[in-house]
């Protein structure tokens, strides 16, 4: 019923009706456009944004799409709808079930989702997120009065209010951390370091998680009973972190390492054949704490037996744990030989097999020595241990040493069967010789290195363990197997850490001149060796 609409004087600032000031009258219109919907953006206080000042004037807005989150919350899409794992009629069943229990899921309304606004271009754009504000009161409504070109006012109702906040992509401290830092605020000079520290912590945590699993595994196996073992583990953790990415396969390797490092602590480790060593005072101390190991505290040991003690494998190789670790060790052995040569794998398998047949080890200790001799003779041609620089190689060589020893042992259930044992050993030795001559890789040599190590003649052990750089010692080393000068130096370094590098090298050089060992060039590296004189 459009009745007379009164026209009104428009926009002319009419003559003032009062003495106060100018009065002007405007028409107010409330257009009724059903298609246009007005909403209010409220920016958080302090947010500096002005659409006027935007030089390039690029603003984009869009609703956030939370459909995926909505579905995961209500488990709507959890099960596959067809194909494997799907049920016939599952959806209908779910719906019927919901109706039966009266469970009402709120429908996902895309128009209720927050707005995402992006101001600016490319790199230096600012993002905002606008969340709807509830409680538009029932008793009031807000209108926007705008002035039109013809001087009239137009009023539009506002239907929704949104609170826009800038989206934060940088990392910030949560409340606990903030409180900590606050308490330290007088002391911190460098605020940058706070976040750096936090980032490092995060990285450690993510690495710890895979570690935790490994630790658990280790715990199951090695039953930490001593501080020593604990100490070992913490050391190992560092190594583990480096390898964390490499996956589960590395677990057994680490255990090996653990045991290698154990050996190191026990035996003032030489990365080489030097398992036999006269015991210094502190060397046997931890033995008594190894509850799992078979080695007990035997004070009345003759020298040989003591050396044999040192020949022992690490805790995890002894009976108690060996079985558990067996399979892994096989695989880990193969892994150590990263330069994959099939020969090496064969060896590993052989050793593993022989390991499996192991029985009493003490009985076979004696056999070790003799068997070792035959081995060393056969393996004199072994060479290539160029990678002494790598710790890994050292450790794995030590490991292989033990394995070798063990492998020799199992073959002799009793003492008498010495010959039987040496035979397979020599066979193995010959094979290995051949393989070595074929241009074995570094690690292959390491597998050989245990063999010479079995040569536990007291004299040699005493020489080397005394730590003196004597001609005898050098001879002893070189007869065992060819080494590079570097290796020699390293050997003595381990024993005599007091001397500086230069002094060591000098002394060794002098002695070498005396001995005048033969020189062999293998793989481009010069090796020194002495022929065995038996």
């Amino acid at each position, binding site marked *: *019923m*459009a*009745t007379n*609409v*009164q026209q*009104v004087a428009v926009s002319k600032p009419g003559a003032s*009706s009062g003495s*106060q*000031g100018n*009065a*002007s*009258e*405007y*028409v*107010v*219109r*409330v257009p*009724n456009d059903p298609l*246009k*919907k007005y*909403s*209010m*953006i*409220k*920016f958080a*206080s302090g*947010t500096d944004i002005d*659409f*006027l000042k935007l030089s390039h*004037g690029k*603003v*984009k*807005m*869009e609703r956030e*799409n939370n*459909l*995926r989150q909505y*579905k995961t919350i209500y488990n709507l899409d959890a099960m596959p709808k*067809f*194909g*494997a*794992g*799907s*049920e*016939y*009629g599952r959806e209908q069943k779910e719906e019927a079930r919901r109706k039966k229990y009266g469970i009402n899921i709120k429908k996902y309304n*895309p128009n209720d989702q927050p707005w995402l606004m*992006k101001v600016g271009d490319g790199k230096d754009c600012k993002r905002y997120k606008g969340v709807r504000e509830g409680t538009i009161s*029932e*008793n*009031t*409504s*807000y*209108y*926007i*009065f*705008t002035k039109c070109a013809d001087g009239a*006012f137009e009023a*539009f*109702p506002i239907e929704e209010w949104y609170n826009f906040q800038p989206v934060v992509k940088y990392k910030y401290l949560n409340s606990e951390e903030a409180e900590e830092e606050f308490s330290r605020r007088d002391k911190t000079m460098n605020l940058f370091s706070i976040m750096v520290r936090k980032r490092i912590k995060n990285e450690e945590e993510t690495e710890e998680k895979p570690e935790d699993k490994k630790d658990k595994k280790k715990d199951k196996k090695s039953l930490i009973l001593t501080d020593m073992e604990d100490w070992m583990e913490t050391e190992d953790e560092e190594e583990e972190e480096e390898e964390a990415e490499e996956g589960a396969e590395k677990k057994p390797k680490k255990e090996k390492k653990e045991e290698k490092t154990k050996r190191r602590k026990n035996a003032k480790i030489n990365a080489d054949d030097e398992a036999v060593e006269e015991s210094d005072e502190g060397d046997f101390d931890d033995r008594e704490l190894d509850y799992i190991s078979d080695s007990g505290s035997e004070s009345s040991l003759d020298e040989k037996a003591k050396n044999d003690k040192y020949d022992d494998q690490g805790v995890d190789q002894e009976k108690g744990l060996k079985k558990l670790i067996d399979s892994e060790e096989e695989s880990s052995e193969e892994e150590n030989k990263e330069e994959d040569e099939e020969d090496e794998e064969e060896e590993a398998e052989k050793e593993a097999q022989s390991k499996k047949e192991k029985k009493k080890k003490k009985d076979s200790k004696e056999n070790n020595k003799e068997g070792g001799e035959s081995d060393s003779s056969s393996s004199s041609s072994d060479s290539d241990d160029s990678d002494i620089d790598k710790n890994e190689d050292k450790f794995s060589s030590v490991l292989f040493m033990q394995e070798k020893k063990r492998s020799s042992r199992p073959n002799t259930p009793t003492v008498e069967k010495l010959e039987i044992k040496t035979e397979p050993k020599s066979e193995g030795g010959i094979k290995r010789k051949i393989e070595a001559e074929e241009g074995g890789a570094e690690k292959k040599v390491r597998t050989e290195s245990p063999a010479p190590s079995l040569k536990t003649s007291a004299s040699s052990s005493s020489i080397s363990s005394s730590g003196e750089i004597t001609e005898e010692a050098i001879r002893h080393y070189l007869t065992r197997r060819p080494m590079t000068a570097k290796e020699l130096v390293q050997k003595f370094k381990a024993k005599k850490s007091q001397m500086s590098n230069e002094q060591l090298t000098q002394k060794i050089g002098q002695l070498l001149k005396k001995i005048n060992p033969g020189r062999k060039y293998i793989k481009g590296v010069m090796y020194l060796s002495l022929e065995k004189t038996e």
Partner: protein
Amino acid sequence: MSQPPEEESARPLRDVDLRAAERGVWLVKVPKYLSEKWKRASGKGEVGKLKIISTKIPGAQPEVTFSMNEAQAQVQVPGRGTATPKEHKFKLTGVGNQNLVVFSENKGEGTTAAEITERIAIEGKVIQRAECQPVVDKSYMQLKKRHVEDSNKPKREIKQITGVVTTYKPVSNHAANIEHEKKIKEGGKRIRDERDVVTNKLFEIFEKHQYYNIQDLVRLTNQPVVSRYGLFNR
């Protein structure tokens, strides 16, 4: 829902029309009864006049009065009386340090497009806030009195009914049931097909889903249950 199958990915951002971004607008709080009347504005939508008197006293806010049209004032709002005050004052306040911007969504005309195209435009920035307050007069008092009475009424009432209430009388057998039984009788028992045929059918069925209920399978293959089991066991 008239919307197409729901998409889960983030939608691309739409450009915002910034043409009117410089406009300064007023944000006015309007009482409910007034806004309701305004919504029913007819014709061009004129509802009244705004009179702004700018005082010469520096620092004072100008007086703004809104007077409603005669016609507008007569607009009937269902459920309420027409007695509304005609004169209102605008009480002006500043915006403070709030940053308020108005934007509008313009729903597209046609819904033939796959997506509902909405044009988003910035309509302006709020420079002034105001409250529309009625000048208190008799009609306003009456209005308020009515409001209070309405809100104090209980939401539920007791009414007396005049018509007849439907009751359900017990029936020996419902119509639906009868039909169902008839259907079964006519449909006949499920015949056993050849074993090969049935197994082929089963394979086809299982290509769609992995797990099935026995009853569903029975329905789908039209086999009696016993023979189904037999097939499975073999």
